[in-house]
């Protein structure tokens, strides 16, 4: 298996707590890139990134259009934009229509990341109340990456990981605690 360099996490209702725990657990010298696509209110622009920054030893930021993707950083999809990953390892944004009632949509980011990162990526779908991320997680598998879904029994809202498991067929179903361990040991897992 190839080395995992990029981790893309999608979450909706009930995922914020897990995301903050993941960020708290990542060491300062974490060598990979973390991209977060979290469903959020489009008008809440201030405070969201700050709340995550407090929990993280890594720099956390919303990317600008065509910004280069760097390792050791945490990127958060900006409110009211879809976030694409380009094959040249830059971000691109879009105001296309909502997908699964969401902008940013987890499917949009996961699918483009799957295409651009191939087998260098880990995709994770966390708690949430719709099916966003399920198709994207299948793309992750189809393009050679690793797909993980939060165990629905462990999720505050099970709908999203259930849909991700059903559509992607991933067998990597982990509790939030085990997701953290999995990320921390990512290249010894593969």
């Amino acid at each position, binding site marked *: 298996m190839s080395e995992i360099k990029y981790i893309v996490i999608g979450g909706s209702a009930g995922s914020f707590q897990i995301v903050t725990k993941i960020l708290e657990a990542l060491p300062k010298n974490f060598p990979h890139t973390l991209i977060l696509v979290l469903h959020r209110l*489009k*008008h809440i*622009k201030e405070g969201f990134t700050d709340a995550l920054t407090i929990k993280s030893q890594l720099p956390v930021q*919303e*990317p*600008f*259009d*065509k910004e280069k993707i760097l390792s050791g950083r945490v990127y958060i999809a*900006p409110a*009211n*934009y879809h976030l*694409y*990953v*380009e*094959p040249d390892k830059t971000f*691109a*944004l*879009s*105001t*296309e*229509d909502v997908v699964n009632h969401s*902008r940013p949509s987890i*499917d*949009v980011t996961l*699918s*483009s990341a799957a*295409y*651009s990162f191939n087998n260098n990526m880990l995709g994770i779908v966390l708690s949430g109340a719709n099916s966003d991320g399920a*198709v*994207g997680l*299948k*793309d992750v598998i*189809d393009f050679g990456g690793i797909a993980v879904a939060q165990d629905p029994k462990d999720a505050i809202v099970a709908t999203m990981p259930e849909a991700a498991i059903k559509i992607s067929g991933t067998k990597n179903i982990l509790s939030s605690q085990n997701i953290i361990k999995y990320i921390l040991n990512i290249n010894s897992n593969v």
Partner: protein
Amino acid sequence: MSELKIFVPDVNQVYSEIKSLSDFDFIDYAFSFKRRRIILFMKTQKVFNVDDLIYRFNQSDKFVSDFVRFLFVPQTELFRDAELWNYLNEKIFPKLLLKKDVNIHIPCCTGGEEVYSLMFFLGLFQSSGVTITVSYPLSENENFIKNRKFNQQDLKKCVKNIELLNNVLNPEDVFIGQTNQMRINHFYRGNVNFKKEKIMNQQYISEFDLVLFRNRLIYFNEDLQSTVLPKINASIKKGGYLILGEKEILGQMSGKFKKITSKLSVYKKRIF
């Protein structure tokens, strides 16, 4: 999305074909956007491989124009980024409207949300010395924008924006007309000119006091951004304003402008 696997050569082939069959060149648009639009279009048209898609393009001009139309994503909602409109209303428009003649440009306009948001706010000043130039890529855009009516879904998209606008009390202040046939209740007294043009082919010379160019650069790759931004720069008078989307950057043109507020993408063109 996953059943259709579209790769770089497929994307290049589709857009080369579109270039040869239409007036439009999307080669330098952002790759992931182009790829996703192909996949979505194929799904809606029930086309299952790229060869069939290209065959259909060659069989029908309408099929080509449907695809081209599908690539021009409209602005998402009226009054998107309410804090920007509040800033323009409170800080920029009062200054700008002290001038006798004010020229404003909205390039690459397809849906009209920016035009009507702008007319609503300029209408609050009841100034007649303003000309808004709306340039658009497709012939059909002009009539669509001129006759634009808004429905409940449009209202739902922008209702939160309206709540966040200063000095606007509720959606009834903004819309008039029957449900699903609503128009913007504006008191704009200036002119609106419509021009079909492609920004990348234009040569502008210091024509505009303000250019509202939000969330258009994001669809271009860096090469095309590098072509378009100097044209936008050339189109703005010294001391004039440029408004970009909140996550768009000026790149090589950054030295020509000063960002005048840290949180919003409002730029003032430098005099020297």
